[in-house]
């Protein structure tokens, strides 16, 4: 296990370095932030002064090595917008980002597992067709549209929830539901497929003959044996949810790292963008480890070698 984890860590670190390099170069293609930080009537001298103050007058290769030197000891530079070390605003939003992702994925699992199981039990019957149509809708509907319609119905018309922000628990409802809809759609289909295969297996017929209740057969014996594809897709879904805070952030102004990164792109705040990408990358690497461990726990035949 130790060598497996070490190998995964090495490959993950390489991938993270690659992403950081790509983000650095792509961000610089958008030009100097002077256009945003200085008014329209700024003189050329003033623009030059701004670029010099922040190192944007240096050749791009020099800027890159400055970035590498800083990043090697986790110094991503100062945020242009917030005038503080770039990692500080990013770290501030880690708890809400994690919690938003956690709630969304838990909601997705809580809804998708029963729905997918019911669809598998009643395969090709009315319940299956209704659930399949519902899950396809969830998968297909664009997140920003769901978000705006959600605001219109639940905030403007019904006055049940706030339109945006993050004041109290009600502010979490629309962002969590918006973020979980696509995972609900995808996971429902995966659970349905995996359960349908499992329910037809010989050991399931044996468990029926042993007199286990339908609930126990499906939700305990069936689900455990169908769990591997569900865990695999759940892992991908968590990664989607972790990054999916962007749409939720933009529409609901919900404070998450994704939203902070969008704001950083708009503000040409390269340091915050790079710190955000780094931290999201670390979270995803950590998540991959956790998923591997869950995989081994769920199926003892899997060996982490």
């Amino acid at each position: 296990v130790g060598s497996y984890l070490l190998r995964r860590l090495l490959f993950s670190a390489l991938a993270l370095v690659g992403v950081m390099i790509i983000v650095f170069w792509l961000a610089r293609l958008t030009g100097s932030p002077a256009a945003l930080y200085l008014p329209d009537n700024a003189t050329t001298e003033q623009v030059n002064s701004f670029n010099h103050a922040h190192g944007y007058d240096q050749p791009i290769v020099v800027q890159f090595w400055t970035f590498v030197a800083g990043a090697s000891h986790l110094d991503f530079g100062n945020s242009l917008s917030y005038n503080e070390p770039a990692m500080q605003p990013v770290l501030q939003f880690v708890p809400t980002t994690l919690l938003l992702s956690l709630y969304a994925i838990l909601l997705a699992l809580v809804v998708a597992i029963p729905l997918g199981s019911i669809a598998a039990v009643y395969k090709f019957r009315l319940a299956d067709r209704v659930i399949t149509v519902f899950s396809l809708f969830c998968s297909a509907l664009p997140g920003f549209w769901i978000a705006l319609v959600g605001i219109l119905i639940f905030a403007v018309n019904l006055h049940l929830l706030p339109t945006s922000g993050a004041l109290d628990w009600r502010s979490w409802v629309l962002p969590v539901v918006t973020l979980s809809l696509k995972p609900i759609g995808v996971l429902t289909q995966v659970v349905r497929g995996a359960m349908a295969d499992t329910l037809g297996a010989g050991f399931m017929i044996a468990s029926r003959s042993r007199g286990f209740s339908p609930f126990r057969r499906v939700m305990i014996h069936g689900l455990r044996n169908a769990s591997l594809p569900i865990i695999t897709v759940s892992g991908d879904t968590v990664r989607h949810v972790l990054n999916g805070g962007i749409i939720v952030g933009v529409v609901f102004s919900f404070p998450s790292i994704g939203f902070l990164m969008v704001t950083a792109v708009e503000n040409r705040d390269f340091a915050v963008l790079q710190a955000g990408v780094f931290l999201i990358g670390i979270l995803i690497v950590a998540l991959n480890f956790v998923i591997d461990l869950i995989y081994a726990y769920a199926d003892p035949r899997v060996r982490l070698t």
Partner: protein
Amino acid sequence: MAAVVLTSVTIVSLIAACSTGGSGKTSTSPANTAITIAEPTEPISLDPCNSQLQDTGYVLVGNVLQALTTIDPANGKTVPQLATSWKENSTTDWTFKLKSGVKFSDGAAFDATAAAYNINRLVNGTSADILACANRSNWAGETVVTKVTNATTLEITTSVPDPVLPTRLVWTEMSSPDATPTDTLTKTPIGTGPYEVEKYTPTVSLVLSRYAKYAGPKPAVAKATYVWRAATSVRADMISTNEADIALGLAPQDVAGVKSQTYSLSEATFLRLDTDVAPMDDPRIREAIAESIDRKTIVKTLMQGIGEPAQQMVTSINNGYIPGFAGVPYDATHAKKLVAAAKADGVDVSVSIPIYNRVDLYPGEDQVIQAVVSDIKKVGLNAQQDNLDVGAWTIQNSRPFPADRPGRAVVSATNNNTGDAAFNFLTYMLPDQRHSVLDDPKVTALINQANSAPIGKTRSALFQKAAKIVYTTDYYMVPFAYLDGLLETSSRVNYKANDLTANALQIADVTFK
């Protein structure tokens, strides 16, 4: 496993509950004197020397920070704020008399020494390379020497004759020297205004609270929370759900109507035409473009009346505004003839003319530029719309321009509520200036003369003469709309928008019903 998950959720929930700031939801209690203001974008700086940046000015100017002078929104004239009067001793020497007994919200006294400190910090830039302040752009390389005569008297000597010094000082806000170092930008400006910054949570909210010892009249609003919502529909929705009391920068289709009002942005949007690259180097082509745009229809239909047709870069409160000027009327028939004549003389009118549009210039700008491009195409020119984000657009809008550029039109907008044309004519009309393609000796001479003339009829006449050549002889600038803003208020507050709303919404102007 379940226990681990539950514990994790609980811990993260607690941390999140402690770390997220409030969005400033407004209670509907009659005793509540807090308001919430929904704006499109967050300030990218809270330093006084960046107050000219629109999002920064919205929040700070007049609310937290005050300057020696300010603009009277009624007529665009420069009037005293922390100064009581001023005197022009010579073309470069001025004496400013300051108010006595004024204190910053940290308790420090505002006096001539503090005023000199703030002016030097911005203008002379002792740490210029570090601060790189936005407001320094108003000074165009000019420096000053300050001399404190006594607590309420400040002498200022400018490096060049500066007849509009009091107007330049409008954007030189005063902040407590202790809170405003010269070697770094501050996030906690301490001003003399009726409010102070209580709490700033990046991307979430900025809270201003009433400064208890403010010397002026006590404002009705005790606390103002600014929140930022990118979607105009969400900002408008926040009014109908009582989550916000004022929502700014709305699109016409999003407002309910009854509680909405327009406000002047003192801003004109225009095409800046290349004059030095074919086919735009032929003045007939530029004149045809100017004549092709049906300004009235565009403003009435696409902008839904949130604005006015424009023939000039500045509004009537500015001394560069030409009273009674007809401009270049819409005449597609004549424009077609001009294009045909140019074609007959060998000008290749089929060549593509890119119209570089900045995507976030104002709500609905894409449709407006589509109509402009369509109008230009109708007269026989091959205009092509190219929507750019601010970074890519700046490459087209600012020097150094791309070396192999085609003949282009760049869509831009300029805001000038200072009353003086120097603050935008120079950068757009003088050769080699940052946004200028023009090199017309007549225009250059007139603007240079105007810029050194004292405020008055001569200065105004010279600016206006230069502008007329630019609009109707050079056909270099093609203004087509004055932009208005649209805001909505909740049913519990009174607020009357004025010409300063766009740059500095004064919370003290808000009262409760």
